[in-house]
C-alpha cells in the first residue's frame, strides 16, 4: 500500500489555512496510525501549512503514505529563503503585524518541524521556491 494526497495552500488565505492539516489528521486516523505519531505529523504539517499561507506565494502539501513511513513534502513557488540558517534560528521571524495578531510569527515553526519529524530536509532557491521534506516512521 502506497499512495499520495495533495493539498493546495494559497498565500494569505487565513480563512482556509489549516484545512489541509485537518484533512491529513483525519486521513491518518482512518489509517489507524497511532495518536502519538499523528500528533507529530499534525503539528509539523500545520506549521508548514501556516508558513505557506504566511510567507510563500502559494504552494502545496503532499502526504505520501508508505509501508512503514509517512512523508510530508511542503513546497512553494517562491519567494525562497535568502538565509536558511538564519530562518532556522529560534526566534527569527519576518512575519508582520497581521500574522502576529493571529498568534503566529514567533520564529518557532521550522525548529518545531525539526523537533517533530524523524528526518527533516529543507532546500530553497530565491525566486524559485522552498521545499521541505519530512519523514515520520510508523511502527
Amino acid at each position, binding site marked *: 500500500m502506497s499512495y499520495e494526497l495533495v493539498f493546495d495552500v494559497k498565500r494569505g488565505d487565513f480563512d482556509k489555512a489549516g484545512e489541509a492539516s485537518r484533512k491529513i489528521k483525519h486521513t491518518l486516523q482512518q489509517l489507524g496510525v497511532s495518536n502519538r505519531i499523528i500528533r507529530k505529523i499534525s503539528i509539523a504539517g500545520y506549521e508548514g501549512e501556516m508558513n505557506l499561507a504566511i510567507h510563500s506565494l502559494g504552494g502545496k502539501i503532499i502526504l505520501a503514505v508508505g509501508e512503514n513511513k509517512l512523508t510530508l513534502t511542503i513546497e512553494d513557488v517562491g519567494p525562497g529563503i535568502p538565509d536558511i540558517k538564519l530562518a532556522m534560528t529560534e526566534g527569527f521571524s519576518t512575519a508582520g503585524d497581521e500574522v502576529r495578531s*493571529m498568534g503566529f510569527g514567533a520564529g518557532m515553526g521550522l525548529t518545531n518541524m525539526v523537533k517533530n519529524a524523524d528526518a527533516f530536509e529543507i532546500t530553497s532557491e530565491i525566486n524559485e521556491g522552498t521545499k521541505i521534506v519530512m519523514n515520520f516512521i510508523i511502527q
Partner: protein
Amino acid sequence: MKLSQVRELLNAVVLTGENHLDDEVYVGFGCDLMSDVLCYAKEGAVLLTGLSNKQVLNTAEMANMNSIVFVRNKVPNNEILELAREMDILTMTTKLILFECCGILYEHGLKGANLS
C-alpha cells in the same frame, strides 16, 4: 477535575461541546501565542487564550488540546463556532482575565501543561 468544574470556577458560559462537560482535565496551558502552544503544550490540556480566531481552533486540534477557554470575554464568530462543533471540542468563554483564570485553576489542582 471535570470540565464542568472548570466552567463553575471560571463562571464561564459553554459555547460548544457541552457533551464533554464530564471529561476530566489535569493540565492547562495559557497564552495568546499559538506558536508556543504548538511548541510547548502537552496534549490533553485546557487551552486558555484571549485570541478567538480560526487558527486557535486549528492549533488546539493539531496539538490535541482537551478544550478551549476564551478569556477576557472573547467570543468567536458563528463560523468559527460551527468549526468547533465539527471538531467536537468543548469551548467556553469567561469575563475573567488570563491571569485570574490560571490562578484559580492552579489553586484547585490543575498543573501546567509544560512538555519538558
